[in-house]
């Protein structure tokens, strides 16, 4: 039994952060068999968070964010080729170049790609960009170097807001368009969304909320954009920051529970098939995975978080080389960071899994605070702004389902100690897709949302 799981053929599809960390962990845990990593992009695994920060600021070239390895993974790298299908009976991955890679166990870590501008003709205009890959970052950084007269950022989630911040730091004129009521509101709710709006305007961003971009204009080159409120701007660069699409299309015929929300798997990263039966040889990790989390009422979560890709890949790899009773669950508390407009924003838990929020330390006025989120009387998340060292404390409250609101801090003069509604809007009201998607159903809400076809 032991020998069986430590050798054989493991294939990892997706050669980014999750794929790399899984490969390293497999070798650390004693996997001696053959290991193949398949990646669509030609370059070896690289880090993405710097793309919207260091790279857009011009401090680091886009092709220099390669990830360091923790150890030699002794793998065959199949880079620059896309996986196009999975044969779960024959146990092989089909590649775009016509080759097939057989496996005994498979890890799906194909992640996400940027959601493109929906009108293909407008998306093809010179000057219209998305930002997800290092190649996209290189082209956008080059265009920012050339000194555009105005940059339009469509979507004010984390990526859009970081892009706007980098542009302002370069001294470029920026317009941000967001369908929702404020930047970051889809991830952090109304209280911190209002702070983000104030911050963007204080840094000179022409922020327009409650509007959509109805047309990108130009003849070959982008010249401007039309908004749903009838206004118009001139712009020679537009960055489409509408969230991400999960790379699951290649799994359409695989019989797995794979779709637009990701690949559904259990807490041990084992993928489900379309009937909800768990597989024992196909695993999923990173942005592509959708898994039940006990801290959040077993809601299925898809997380587009750096830390989740690392933690889930390590659990998946452990479970791929360990028999049943020795397997581990992926129970990590979700966490992410963002830096924008000179502030360090960090989050633990799931802020959108909340009905109330309270400023537990600091104040909105000073833009230095910890906001704590609660759901039905227990703590479910905390977000710090320039106050990161407090977060470990709140993470323990989340892990132990401590009562909400938390007891007041001893030293702090709290500006607003009373919890207010967390005002998390329906993601359908936002320009951008959510980076944390609660994709399950709430057992206590006995309803189904039926949407008419558009």
């Amino acid at each position: 039994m032991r020998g069986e799981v430590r050798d054989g053929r493991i294939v990892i599809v997706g050669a980014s952060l999750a794929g790399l960390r899984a490969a390293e962990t497999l070798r650390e845990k004693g996997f001696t068999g053959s290991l193949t990593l398949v990646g669509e992009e030609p370059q070896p695994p690289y880090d993405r968070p710097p793309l919207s920060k260091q790279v857009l600021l011009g401090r680091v070239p886009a092709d220099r964010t390669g990830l360091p390895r923790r150890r030699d993974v002794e793998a065959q790298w199949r880079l620059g080729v896309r996986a196009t299908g999975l044969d779960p009976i024959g146990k092989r991955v089909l590649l775009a170049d016509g080759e097939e890679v057989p496996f005994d166990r498979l890890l799906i870590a194909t992640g996400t790609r940027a959601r493109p501008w929906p009108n293909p003709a407008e998306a093809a205009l010179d000057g219209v960009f998305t930002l997800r890959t290092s190649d996209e970052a290189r082209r956008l950084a080059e265009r920012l170097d050339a000194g555009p007269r105005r940059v339009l950022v469509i979507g004010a989630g984390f990526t859009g807001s970081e892009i706007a911040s980098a542009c302002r730091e370069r001294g470029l004129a920026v317009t941000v368009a967001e369908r929702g009521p404020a930047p970051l509101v889809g991830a952090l709710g109304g209280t911190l969304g209002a702070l983000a709006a104030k911050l963007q305007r204080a840094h000179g961003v022409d922020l327009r909320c409650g509007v959509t971009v109805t047309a990108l204009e130009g003849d070959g080159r982008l010249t401007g954009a039309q908004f749903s409120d009838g206004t118009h701007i001139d712009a020679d660069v537009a960055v489409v920051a509408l969230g991400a699409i999960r790379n699951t299309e290649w799994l359409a015929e695989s019989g797995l529970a794979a779709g637009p929300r990701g690949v559904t798997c259990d807490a041990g990263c084992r993928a489900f098939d379309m009937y909800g039966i768990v597989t024992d040889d196909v695993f999923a990790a990173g942005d592509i995975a959708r898994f039940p989390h006990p801290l959040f009422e077993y809601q299925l979560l898809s997380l587009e978080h750096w830390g989740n890709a690392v933690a889930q890949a390590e659990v998946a790899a452990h479970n791929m080389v360990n028999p049943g009773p020795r397997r581990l669950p992926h129970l990590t508390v979700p966490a992410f960071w963002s830096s924008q407009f000179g502030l360090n924003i960090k989050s633990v838990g799931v802020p959108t899994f909340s009905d109330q929020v309270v400023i537990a330390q600091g104040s909105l006025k000073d833009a230095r605070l910890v906001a704590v989120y609660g759901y039905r009387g227990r703590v479910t998340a905390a977000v710090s702004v320039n106050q990161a060292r407090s977060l470990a404390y709140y993470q323990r409250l989340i892990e132990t389902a401590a009562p909400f609101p938390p007891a007041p801090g001893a030293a702090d003069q709290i500006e607003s100690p009373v919890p207010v509604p967390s005002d998390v809007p329906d993601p359908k009201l936002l320009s951008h897709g959510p980076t944390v998607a609660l994709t399950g159903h709430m057992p206590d809400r006995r309803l189904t949302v039926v949407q008419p076809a558009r």
Partner: protein
Amino acid sequence: MNVVVDLNRCQGYAQCAFLAPEVFTMHGEEALLYHPVVPDGQLERVRRAVAACPVQAILMGEEAGAGAR
């Protein structure tokens, strides 16, 4: 040699920015920016920064999969 910083762990102690300022810089009061590729002359300084980080958030190593290019 490349570095990556786990910014979930990073708590802004700024020891790295003190020990290897060409690679690590603070951006605002708390946010850390870093250069992922360590310049040759900076290796020893970065090694010291890795060791000095109170939360051990910095990983240094050879670039992964570079031979596959």
